[in-house]
């Protein structure tokens, strides 16, 4: 092969790659652009630059309520699914038992199930259990969809955790609790924080399950959906959407950095033998 071809020097492949990226991100770029436009209708050409829509956001009580609800749901769902994920990931990575792979598959399944089906099924179950719809039922639903993400992050952090590290700590005189505090926790902390951030982000953005399982209390995506009926509210929605977008992007980036750090910590054995 010619060395030149490795650098995509023009040609069809780079055109394709460019169009691909544009297709993925162009719609997303429109959001922040129109959110600082003075005209309330999202149309080109832009009429002027303003931050008015952003300034209006904190003055909307319904929005603040929805944000507060999303915060509660996001924190509860991320903590719950991370705790459950830690237990499952530890078991999957540390022990060998029959059905281990099947169990792992079942835990990961909600990732590929149609969300609307999951939402309807959960709704049926909640009603059967006699639970009235509230933020609590939304949290339960979000835990279900968050656990696969939590598992992915945590297993990559726990995988290859050399059991002899804990033995070495005990061998050097440390108690079981001391070993957990001085070895286990520092090693897996980045993965745990990463899992919390990923789950929080997913819960924050999740619409379908929240829509089916919430009672009268709206989360942010539900609030946004409700506002779309009023053309005059659109700029506010765009501003809010932009903020959510930035928040998600930041949280996911931090989460990925932490996940990689965790994976590096546990998997640095091997490779360096010389």
């Amino acid at each position, binding site marked *: 092969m010619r060395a030149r071809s490795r650098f995509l020097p023009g040609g069809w492949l780079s055109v394709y790659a460019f169009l691909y990226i544009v297709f993925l991100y162009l719609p997303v770029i429109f959001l922040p652009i129109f959110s600082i436009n003075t005209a309330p209708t999202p149309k080109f050409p832009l009429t002027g630059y303003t931050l008015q829509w952003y300034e209006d956001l904190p003055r909307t009580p319904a929005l603040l309520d929805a944000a507060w609800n999303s915060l509660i749901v996001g924190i509860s769902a991320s903590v719950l699914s991370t705790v459950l994920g830690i237990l499952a990931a530890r078991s999957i990575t540390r022990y060998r038992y029959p059905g281990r792979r099947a169990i792992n598959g079942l835990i990961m399944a909600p990732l590929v199930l149609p969300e609307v089906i999951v939402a309807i099924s959960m709704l049926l179950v909640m009603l059967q259990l006699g639970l009235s719809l509230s933020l609590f039922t939304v949290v339960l639903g979000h835990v279900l969809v968050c656990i696969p993400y939590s598992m992915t992050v945590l297993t990559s952090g726990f995988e290859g955790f*050399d059991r*002899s*590290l804990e*033995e*070495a*700590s*005990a*061998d*050097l*005189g*440390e*108690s079981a609790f*001391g070993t957990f505090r*001085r*070895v286990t926790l*520092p*090693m897996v902390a980045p993965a745990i924080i990463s899992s919390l951030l990923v789950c929080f982000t997913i819960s924050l953005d999740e619409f379908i399950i929240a829509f089916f399982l919430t009672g009268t209390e709206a989360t942010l995506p539900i609030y946004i959906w409700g506002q779309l009926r009023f053309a005059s509210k659109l700029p506010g929605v765009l501003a809010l959407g932009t903020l959510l977008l930035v928040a998600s992007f930041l949280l996911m980036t931090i989460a990925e950095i932490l996940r990689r750090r965790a994976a*590096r*910590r*546990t998997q*640095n*054995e091997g490779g*360096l*033998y*010389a």
Partner: protein
Amino acid sequence: MPDQPRIERPHPERPQSEKPMIEIRDVTRSYGAFKALDDASLTIREGEFFSLLGPSGCGKTTLLRMIAGFDNPTSGSISVGGQSMEGIPANRRPTNMVFQSYAIFPHLNVEQNVAYGLKRLKLQGAEEKRRVEEALAQVSLNGLGKRRATELSGGQRQRVALARALVMRPKVLLLDEPLSALDKKLREQMQVELRRLQQAVGITFVLVTHDQYEALAMSDRIAVMFGGRIAQVASPKEIYQRPVNRQVADFLGGMNFVKAEIVEENGASLVVDTLGFGRVRTDKPKAFVRNGGGATLGIRPERLRVLWDNATAKFEVAGKVVERHYFGEITHLIVEIPGLEKPLSVTETNDFGADDIPVGTSIRLAYDPEALVAMAD
């Protein structure tokens, strides 16, 4: 430090203590019906470099882990320094371990790794620093204290693992295949260094290995294990020259086996008839237990020497070279002897031209009857 002889035992510079350090009494470890360790008894002396040698699955690692406190005997007892280890968890035992994977804490730097166990002792800051530096100097890692574990080579990691254990000043240092991840050259260098280190610190070392050369080169005494049982405990020289059975003989390098009929047996010696070597009188091994009228004689390939031209020896056998394999410093000859069911392996150094002996040549081999070892069938 001048080079020390590698194989000379015992070491005249530090007389061996006869005081027991580790006593293993009738220890069995069962996993269901499988016995990883089967009624093993062993005494390891104070200040000794002791090796547990055997193929994988022979129970050597299980025994080491029970001394460390990571596993418990199903029955039997283990004591260290005269104190029973029953019910004492790993973190309160006077032993420290160098793990096969080294188990260096990746989130800590070299100094913090070495100081890990000292933190519990609540030493003064200066005293802790002094001990860490002393331990790093012992393993020639001075100046690398601030490095992260991820920035170290395999050999350096192993030194950190050693320093981290030695800094605790244990009564016993346990080493679980510490050299198996290193390449050949580094491994041989570390064998010498480990031996020197052990002599310098005077701590009892217990090494688990499946590499017979490693065990022979480093140990004061070796226990050879098979299938959960201890087959022989002796000095490297005795293990190599006087193996108790064919299994031990085979595991410790090449050995020619020759069928023999027992003609006469008394307290110290044994007279046997063989087809290739005729009638031979040999020392009777301590562990020899007669099993019918037969026995096996063994002779190491390097104890057979090629007789050149018209040279003669008091004891010789004649045969024909059927194969020749060149290994650089030595040549390996396969020699067929009339009457023997299996041809003999002979290793000959190349200084006299053994590498030029054509296949098919008739040659004579000299041997010393002392080199023939009798083993029960």
